[in-house]
């Protein structure tokens, strides 16, 4: 109804508007012309690379192109699955992501809950403003700052360590492979805690105040209300964010790793994303690298749908 009305407004001259597909399309030429550039953009920059995935199943030759390169079946997949280097890369990726899931995922939730309990309005706003800040600073700079703080010669952390007699010698943090994972996850937490909390802060603000009043009348203290009113009320948001977190378990930010990586920690800092870059673009093993990337994307997709399914069955919360 709405549509015929609009067509009538727009094209009174054509006389046959409102009936049939073609006239409807014609009558909204202006509207369609706004959307099509966007679709065209996605076809070129998203769908054409998807077609390029074919090279994962071929022995890609730059001069032959995607179509004419000879088929290789699953040989590239077999190759990386039996490659000890890749196993090492997979271990690093999973280790950092599991750490991030156990430590980094709850941190913004706790932060939001505590922030909500702050009584001073100005202090609360100040904490919020400061906590969002690192999100807007590039990883090059934030990583550089972390490296400065951890530096053996000028780092404040080493000053504390030596002054408090935790260790007699300054610790070379970035040269110690055992510490890399925790430093990386710690840096990510510090950079992301405030930004990650925004969505929970909004969810908490949406909790019905009457629930809190009722709980208070029943004698619940603040911690009890936090535990039995606020947390259950924002559970939906938490579950949705958890689905996203689980599906990105093979992602480690490329930018931050590239900044913090050095020859001493290469063995523990190489992750799938940096590996795909180095093998693909630096060593120009195009097909092999595409196979690794494709496997990663597929696992992420399966995890997304899997986590979504489990969550829908267990908690009734789901993305789609």
């Amino acid at each position, binding site marked *: 109804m709405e549509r015929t009305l609009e067509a009538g407004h727009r094209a009174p001259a054509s006389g046959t508007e409102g009936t049939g597909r073609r006239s409807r399309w014609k009558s909204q030429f202006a509207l369609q012309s706004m959307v099509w550039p966007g679709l065209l953009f996605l076809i070129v920059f998203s769908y054409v690379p998807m077609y390029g995935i074919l090279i994962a199943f071929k022995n890609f030759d730059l001069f032959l192109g995607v179509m004419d390169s000879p088929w290789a079946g699953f040989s590239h997949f077999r190759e990386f699955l039996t490659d000890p280097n890749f196993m090492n890369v997979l271990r690093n990726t999973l280790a950092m992501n599991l750490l991030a899931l156990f430590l980094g995922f709850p941190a913004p939730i706790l932060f939001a809950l505590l922030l909500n309990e702050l009584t001073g309005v100005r202090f609360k706003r100040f904490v919020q403003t400061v906590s969002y800040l690192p999100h807007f600073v590039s990883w090059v700079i934030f990583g550089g700052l972390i490296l400065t703080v951890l530096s053996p010669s*000028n780092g404040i952390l080493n000053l504390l360590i030596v002054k408090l007699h935790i260790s007699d010698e300054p610790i070379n943090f970035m040269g110690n492979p055992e510490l890399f994972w925790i430093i990386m996850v710690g840096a990510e937490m510090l950079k992301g805690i405030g930004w990650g909390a925004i969505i929970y802060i909004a969810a908490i603000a949406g909790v019905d105040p009457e629930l809190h009043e009722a709980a208070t009348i029943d004698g619940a203290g603040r911690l009890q209300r936090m535990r039995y009113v606020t947390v259950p009320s924002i559970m939906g948001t938490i579950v949705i964010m958890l689905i996203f977190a689980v599906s990105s378990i093979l992602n480690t930010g490329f930018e931050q790793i590239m900044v913090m990586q050095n020859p001493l920690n290469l063995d523990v800092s190489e992750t799938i994303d940096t590996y795909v870059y180095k093998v693909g673009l630096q060593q120009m093993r195009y097909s092999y690298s595409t196979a690794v990337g494709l496997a990663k994307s597929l696992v992420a997709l399966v995890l997304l749908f899997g986590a979504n399914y489990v969550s829908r069955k267990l908690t009734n919360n789901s993305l789609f």
Partner: protein
Amino acid sequence: MNIRSKGDKWFDAFNVIIMTSIVVLTIAPFWFALVGSFNQGLDYMRGGVYFWPRTFTLSNYFSVFSDQTIFHAYFVTISRTIVGTALHVAFTALVAYGMSRRALAGRNVYMIVMMFTMFFYGGLVPTYLLYKDLGLLNNFLVYIIPTMFSVWDMIIVMSFFRSIPEQIIESAKIDGAGEYRIFLQLILPLTKPVLAAIALFNGVYHWNAYTDAMLFTTKEALEPVQLFLMRIVTDSSEASKFGEQAASVMPEEAKQISPETLKLAMMMATTAPILVIYPFLQKYFVKGVLIGSVKG
């Protein structure tokens, strides 16, 4: 407000301590770098400069701003930020307006075509080969064109456009306004806050981006500040090369600078613009994130 119990007071004190620690942990790294950037270079290398500059100097900043390479790198970054952000906002808003109209034929199909790209990515190598075919490698446009549109931002803007009552558009149409005119003169002025949020996000992205330059360009003339910084942060030989270069330009200052303090000065100079504009735009971006998360 009800009367606060003793337990509440303990909890409040504990909470303030935790929050203060988070604030201190966040600000401290910036502070130490700022202090270092105002300290004489060789003196800084001796160690022990933490809370306040020991030998104050501005020479690190003078070197940063007098270096030709850095100057050019800032030029690249500023150009891509202005051009890239303007095009991104304009293009994304245009598509979002079309998609926000319920009358649009084929809208559901378009939406599926768009959403699919959010969940599946062709991968680095196919993208690289595409850019190669399109002639985007080693081309300034590689910073601009591939980032012109984002489905995520489109959804944020679209949901904002939807909140405008349909009747306003209808009455404009009765008055004889075409879709483009409605978009430009009616819708855009009404939705400035969300456009500001998108512009901020995209502007920060462009300002901070270095991976696209690293992956798709090799020419020094196309190097943005962040990639330049990346090289001197991660590679000490690059840093000392840069230090020598800076020293050769300013021989009288040469004794005062070291690669380390130059690096800190450059980090601070690059962060400063963001720190200055960020508090003013805070209310916009919070709104932007929330719309995105509710719809996404």
